[in-house]
């Protein structure tokens, strides 16, 4: 009996001490935000800079006093580029970690896969993937920061039309990114007076595209568009010079990182593609409303990770977390209010991806003009400024 008494006493004392300890340190409760990125797997080239960006921002925000005195705590999980894994970690964030909002995932497939869960759980999510379907109705809780692929296609076609190209070939990968690009390349062509004479594809993990290029070389196409990410595009660019192909090569914004230039070497020269403004931030006019935020992100990132270059993918995470941080600052830790804030108060908001104008009908908020055309000249990104 006496033993039990002491045990009970100990429990009571401990229970009393816990709130005391809480009072002892004056720190306010931290704000928890979830992050789900494809840090490994096929989309790791997207997820890795996204995660690095978030880590850097958390450090910076907490070093400068947090959000209105509250510490920012980001709980990050790797989705392994796998939709099932993504769903699993999303559930963990919502149920166990009880986060206020989530940023990510990195890919369109994963984002669509968890969309219903997000809507049912009523938690704000800002995706870092491009697909327009992610924010299509019915949709109350999901936002996204990357520019939609169709805007990139239009910017590219506008440029090609201006240069007098009417007959083109397209070469796309068989993965989600290439397939999405192919759909828009085909649906938008007619309105720019462009005819697609042949459409070739290749496996995203392929290592030699000479055969497809030989097909294209023997058509009447005046130029060809290769819609894939930097790994495949570097091989295409290289294979094309290997077989002395002089047809101009256009790519997508998926090549906007140094991997493309490093792997394609001198073959990258002359390649033209639509890209977010981050790539040529220092070349922009000072009047550009995005210039300040682009340069700040670039400098901060490159200071934190020496030897690495800031890229658009990290930029998408930067915009997403900034929106949530701003919302937390304004409305505090309330999921519904955070959602309302992002939907209604993010107006003429300069981000790395463009000028955001969120609205109940548009949870991306970007329009034409967020892409510019870039050419690789002597291994450097060069802005093809419209004159």
């Amino acid at each position, binding site marked *: 009996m006496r033993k039990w008494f002491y045990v009970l006493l100990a429990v009571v004392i401990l229970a009393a001490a816990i709130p005391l300890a809480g009072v002892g340190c004056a720190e306010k409760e931290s704000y928890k935000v979830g992050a789900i990125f494809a840090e490994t797997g096929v989309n790791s080239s997207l997820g890795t800079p996204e995660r690095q960006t978030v880590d850097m921002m958390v450090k910076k925000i907490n070093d400068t006093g947090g959000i209105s005195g509250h510490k920012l705590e980001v709980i990050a999980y790797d989705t392994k580029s796998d939709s099932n894994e993504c769903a699993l970690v999303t559930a963990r964030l919502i149920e166990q970690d009880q986060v206020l909002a989530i940023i990510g995932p990195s890919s369109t497939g994963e984002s669509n896969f968890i969309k219903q869960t997000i809507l049912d759980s009523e938690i704000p999510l800002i995706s870092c993937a491009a697909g327009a379907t992610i924010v299509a109705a019915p949709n109350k809780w999901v936002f996204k920061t990357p520019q939609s692929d169709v805007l990139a296609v239009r910017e590219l076609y506008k440029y090609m039309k201006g240069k007098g190209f009417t007959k083109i070939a397209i070469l796309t990968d068989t993965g989600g990114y290439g397939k999405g690009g192919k759909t828009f390349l085909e649906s938008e062509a007619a309105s720019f007076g462009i005819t697609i004479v042949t459409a070739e594809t290749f*496996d995203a993990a392929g290592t030699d595209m000479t055969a*497809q290029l030989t097909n294209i070389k023997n058509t009447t196409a005046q130029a060809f568009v290769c819609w894939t990410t930097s*790994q495949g595009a570097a091989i295409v660019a290289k294979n094309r010079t290997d077989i002395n192909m002089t047809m101009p090569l256009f790519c997508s914004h998926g090549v906007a990182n140094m991997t493309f230039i490093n792997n394609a070497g001198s073959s990258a020269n002359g390649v033209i593609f639509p890209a977010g403004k981050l790539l040529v931030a220092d070349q922009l006019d000072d009047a550009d409303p995005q210039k300040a935020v682009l340069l700040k992100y670039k400098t901060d990132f490159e200071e934190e990770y020496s030897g690495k270059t800031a890229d658009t993918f990290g930029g998408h995470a930067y915009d997403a977390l900034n929106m949530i941080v701003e919302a937390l600052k304004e409305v505090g830790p309330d999921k519904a209010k955070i959602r309302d804030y992002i939907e209604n108060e993010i107006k003429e908001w300069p981000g790395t991806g463009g000028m955001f104008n969120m609205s109940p009908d548009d949870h991306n908020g970007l329009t034409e003009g967020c892409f510019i055309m870039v050419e690789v000249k002597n291994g450097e990104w060069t802005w093809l400024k419209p004159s």
Partner: protein
Amino acid sequence: METGQFLQYLVSGLTMGSIYALVGLGFTIIFTVTGIINFAQGEFVMLGGMLSYILFTSFGLPSGLAILLSVVAAALVGIMLYLLGIRTARKASAVSLVVITIGASIFIRGVAGQIWTRDPVRPPYFSGSESLSFAGAYIQPQVLWIMGTALVAMIVLHVFFSYTMLGKALKACAISRAAAGLVGIDARAMALIAFALAAALGAIAGSVMAPHTTVSYESGVMLGLKGFVAAAIGGFKSHTLAFFGGLLVGLIESLTVAANWGPFQSEYADAVALIALLIILLIRSRRLSTEERAS
């Protein structure tokens, strides 16, 4: 179709085919000696490519030395795989051992992705970047290196296994471990040699291939699969057949892209190659069973 264009498809097919052949030869070496299908073979190729790049760029070693060291390092990984994975579980069934190699491949890939860059990389060409022109087709010098390496590897392996004492001893283990033991062949040592040899060959393939194809920590998956097909065409027994099996897979892929008709389109290049494998396996298994009945 003009000659130049057709030759271009052939070159493309033979390039990929030679790479598949080299991977297939690695599968064959380990199978002929130990009876195990080693699914980590593709990872040896990846290690060769990644290590030669890293030693070259980060450590500034001359290209040749970087490749030599990466081959030695991969051989050591092969030995470790045998000692830690296969030998410790030697009483397990062949299927379990195959599963161990799958585990090892996931492990090697995971470690590579953690410690090195996740971006694909490309080491420099061995000899110049100017393509050679030949009857209307263009050939990258690196492609000649790839094809040459595959051809030499096939011939050397054939001679080694047929005409040298060590080679014959290795082969004897495959025919009957017990009988080989009776005539004084150390079966365990032979298995160790087979793993080291296959890993070294894989790394050679990786370092010759990487300047043309680029390489990343995940390259081993696809190459392992294609190499497996090449080796399967050769019945996992014949080096010569594995070599030609690899070339066949490469040619089927590039000619499927070239045909651009019906199901023969670039989109289905991989599927056509795998269906070809199924057909070949069906024919082979029928012929084998007839032979068995005859004996």
